[in-house]
């Protein structure tokens, strides 16, 4: 037999997860508050979903007890952006700087953030390299608030720098501690200052985002974030960087707990060029295009190079930024008829590109990411649509399964024909009836996203299929319409974005999802969704049920 799907025990587990008849909560109201809040069930390949159709009509919710977010470390891009803003110099991370670890594809979760001596070494080396440049810029406004040669100036410099570096007013002991570095260092005032600044940006108060809590070991207690904590959470969400002076000043005046001022700040920040930070976060952590770095292989993709890959990233990030900035409806993520393809991508897409493309479903980034070897992958693309856009929970194939399609039918059979055969096995069909159809709808795009109407061997491409819930579609354009008509689509957008905002995974039971259950994807705009997310209890509070 060419396909062996599973043992009996596994079959039962899969059947539950893929049909949605029963939902196994992955951290919902049944589980108690824990230090590793929301850490369970994290998976780039399928947790946090609602298990088929169940949950699509959630309009009320039980607050998740896992409202406590642990100490978040700045991610690598946040370190890069923050050092640049803080020190007023361009920053490039060295190639050896550790890549962020992920849980559920998110880099923002404390549980995902592993620590290593390599990280400490690299951070120390980076700190020295950046501050050594920054202090040598005469009158660098990011540092020099006074003439460093004057006796009382170094402490004043350190005090103002510490407020921005630690994102709160520094303690007297902290100022003294770094002043001591300055005092024991040798060389010019600039060199001595460089040592003190390097120590500051290697310190945990810089690298970790601390949220004060009156009873830090009682996660059930809810606590409203303070002004500086709100400013920090907002700026790392919207900019992937530290607050700017205006936001710090508003925090210093104690204004951010005023909802109107807080909203106005959020709107200002979304209009700022730094909002590209959020677009990148969404493209990477929600849509998953960050994984593109290791997918296309030159052996399989002779036309693929770093330039084309960068163009793929750029297209998706610009598209997402456009949706956020212009408050475009959620639906346009998959239905937008236009895109931002440059000349390089246009060459891949070929002529007639515009009419062949439906939003993100036509992006070379997503289509390459979800290909395998030198061909598209119906399974990977189907998984991507189900998990990323509809928050469906689909388990990985069990350990004993043969996931290779080799040996099924003849060598010349198309991938769709092989999968059609494969689904005749009920053990396989239980999940693949849900996984495959959206992938079939995207078969008109090759491994790099190029449009095609026939396969290299000559067979015509077939793109018509039917979702397991019954909706039929003829091609990618109709698939896009079917996707946005799913009741789970708008809540899924919120569920996928929320972990970037608050640093914990959100699951089926989370109220953030229920808040958007009644929204029409054709009407609700992305900016409006973001403004509602930052005004939600889970964003404004630490601990307790949210």
């Amino acid at each position, binding site marked *: 037999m060419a*396909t*062996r799907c599973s043992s009996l025990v*596994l079959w039962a587990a899969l059947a539950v997860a893929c049909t949605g008849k029963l939902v196994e909560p992955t951290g919902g109201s049944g589980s108690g508050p824990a*230090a*590793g809040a929301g*850490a*369970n*069930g*994290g*998976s*780039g*390949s399928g*947790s946090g979903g609602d298990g088929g159709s169940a949950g699509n009509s959630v309009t009320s919710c039980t607050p998740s007890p896992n409202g406590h977010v642990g*100490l978040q470390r700045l991610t690598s891009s946040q370190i890069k952006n923050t050092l640049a803003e803080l020190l007023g110099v361009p920053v490039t991370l060295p190639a*050896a700087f550790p890549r962020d*670890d*992920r*849980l*559920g*594809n998110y880099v923002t979760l*404390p*549980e995902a953030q*592993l*620590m*290593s*001596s390599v*990280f*400490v*070494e690299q951070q*120390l080396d980076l*700190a*020295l390299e950046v501050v050594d440049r920054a202090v040598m810029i005469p009158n660098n406004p990011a540092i020099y608030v006074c003439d460093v040669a004057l006796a009382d100036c170094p402490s004043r410099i350190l005090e103002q720098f510490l407020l921005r570096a630690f994102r709160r007013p520094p303690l007297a002991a902290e100022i003294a*501690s770094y002043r*001591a*570095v300055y005092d024991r260092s040798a060389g010019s005032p600039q060199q001595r200052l460089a*040592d003190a600044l390097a*120590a500051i940006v*290697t310190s*945990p*108060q810089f*690298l*970790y985002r*601390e949220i004060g*809590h009156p009873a*830090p*070991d009682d996660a059930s207690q809810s606590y409203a974030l303070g002004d500086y904590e709100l400013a920090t959470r907002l700026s790392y969400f919207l900019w992937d960087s530290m607050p700017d002076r205006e936001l710090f000043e508003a925090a210093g005046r104690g204004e951010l707990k005023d909802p109107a001022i807080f909203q106005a700040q959020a709107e200002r920040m979304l209009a700022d060029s730094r909002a590209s930070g959020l677009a990148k976060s969404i493209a990477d952590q929600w849509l998953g295009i960050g994984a593109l770095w*290791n997918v296309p*292989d*030159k*052996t*399989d993709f002779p036309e693929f190079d770093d330039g084309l890959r960068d163009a793929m990233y750029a297209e998706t990030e610009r598209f997402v930024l456009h949706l956020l900035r212009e408050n475009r409806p959620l639906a346009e993520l998959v239905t937008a008829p236009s895109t931002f393809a440059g000349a390089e991508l246009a060459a891949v897409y070929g002529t007639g590109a515009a009419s062949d493309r439906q939003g993100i479903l036509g992006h070379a980034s997503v289509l390459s990411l979800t290909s395998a070897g*030198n061909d598209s992958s119906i399974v990977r693309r189907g998984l991507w649509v189900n998990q990323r856009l509809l928050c469906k929970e689909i388990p*990985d194939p069990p*350990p*004993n*399964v*043969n996931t*290779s399609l*080799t*040996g099924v039918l003849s060598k010349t059979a198309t991938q769709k024909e092989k999968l059609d055969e494969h689904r005749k096995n009920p053990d396989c069909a239980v999940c693949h009836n849900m996984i495959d159809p959206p992938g079939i709808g995207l078969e008109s795009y090759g491994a790099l996203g190029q449009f095609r109407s026939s396969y290299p061997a000559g067979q015509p491409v077939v793109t018509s299929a039917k979702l397991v819930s019954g909706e039929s579609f003829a091609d990618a354009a109709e698939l896009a319409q079917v996707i946005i008509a799913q009741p789970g689509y708008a809540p899924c957008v919120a569920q996928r974005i929320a972990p970037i905002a608050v640093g914990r995974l959100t699951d089926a039971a989370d109220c953030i999802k229920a808040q958007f259950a009644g929204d029409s994807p054709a009407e609700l705009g992305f900016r409006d969704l973001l403004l509602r997310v930052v005004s939600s209890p889970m964003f404004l509070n630490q601990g307790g049920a949210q």
Partner: protein
Amino acid sequence: MSPRWLLDRRSFLIGAAGSVIALPLLEAMFPTEKALAQGPSAADKARFVFLFFPNGSVGSEMSPRPNTPWPSILSPLEEHRAELLFVEGLHNRQNSSWKWYDPKLGTGSGHEVGACCYATCARIPEPGQTRLSISIDQLIGQELRTKRGTRLASLVIADGKNASGIAQGGVNAAFHSLMSWKSDKLNDYEAPLTRPQLVFEQIFAGFEPTSVPGQLSALQLRKKSILDAVKEQEAAMKSRLGTADRARLDQYFSNVREVETKVGALPPPTLLCTKPAAPADVTSKNFPDFTRTMLDLVVLALQCQVTPCVSYQLSRGNGGVQNATYVGLSEDQHGISHHGNNPVQQDKLRQINTWFNGQLAYLIGKLKTIDELGAPLSKNVVTVFGSEVADGDKHNGFDLPIVVAGGQNAGITSGGIADVGFGKAGSGSIETDHERAAPLANLFLSLAQLAGSPATSFGNSTGTLELKPNV
């Protein structure tokens, strides 16, 4: 032109035979280095390399049988037969509580319990936690670092294909990618170095032509001053945090102290190794050159005695991570490993196994050519080559493919088969045979004791093994 960095022989110090300095003079000039290199006993020279290859093999083809032809997938190793001890009948039956754990098949959900639980012989805790127990390279390495004063306890390397984001069924991706665990504390692992340049820097930190022997450089002193200030922040910040966050901060400061130790350590003894030019930044996309470069660096680290142990995950388990382009195949190696008893797929897996065996052969060959004050380096280095599963298709953890190479001066008798479990003479039924198999942990415990460790247990060990042929 490929960006190779394949060290030539000149980059390695030629030992007594090729040295222009006569040994007695050397001894007088550098008593410490002489002691390091020769040591009062064999155990004091022993170093250990744990080499991991992913996704298992075809059936039990990774082991030769007496009086039968040498298996084809072992062909690259045939010239080194005298160096090899095939340890057969070991199981890796983690006491996993994870949902897919199958007590009969002996594995958890597959590759998540791969590298991490291979090296620790521990079980994965509940989902969402990254906590195990000490791995074998750290157990031996921490002990020997204290005794020998080496800068590192274990040099930890992996290929550059980060498993992040492929977490399966809620198991943290960390377990795929992390082989070296320092203790049973939360997140207490050693992250692998995935670029040759980083490994090179680890070996030669502080090794500068301008540095004064026995003295720290200005840069080292500067870093120490900065790290002192960082350490001053610990108490005040911790006092404000809850238990879980304090544990996170502990992790940060334990690594700060680790870096402080490294920053304050003196460079490797110049007599034992020479510093070649830094390697090109070859990435694992060019997998053959990447692997070759890393193996060259492993040899250099052993020769320079900067670490008693090396843990190197040649490639990570599970799928979609590394396409087998190094043997001319565009499919991913994990997909191939699920051969489903399809002969075409099995042949592909044999090609992959043969390639990985070739890497072991390269390492052994290199260690044999290097003279360490009268003995080939291979005799002082115990290399354990193994995978997390036995048959790649079945994911079973019984009769693991395990080869111990070299280490004759450290107490290994090589050149044959040590059948420590049911071997090939068993009934052929996993359900009954596994009762008689020995845990992999017994092999590791035996090695730890050879290294002089006082440990009496490791992971799920039940005893020790005699590391000599018995078939």
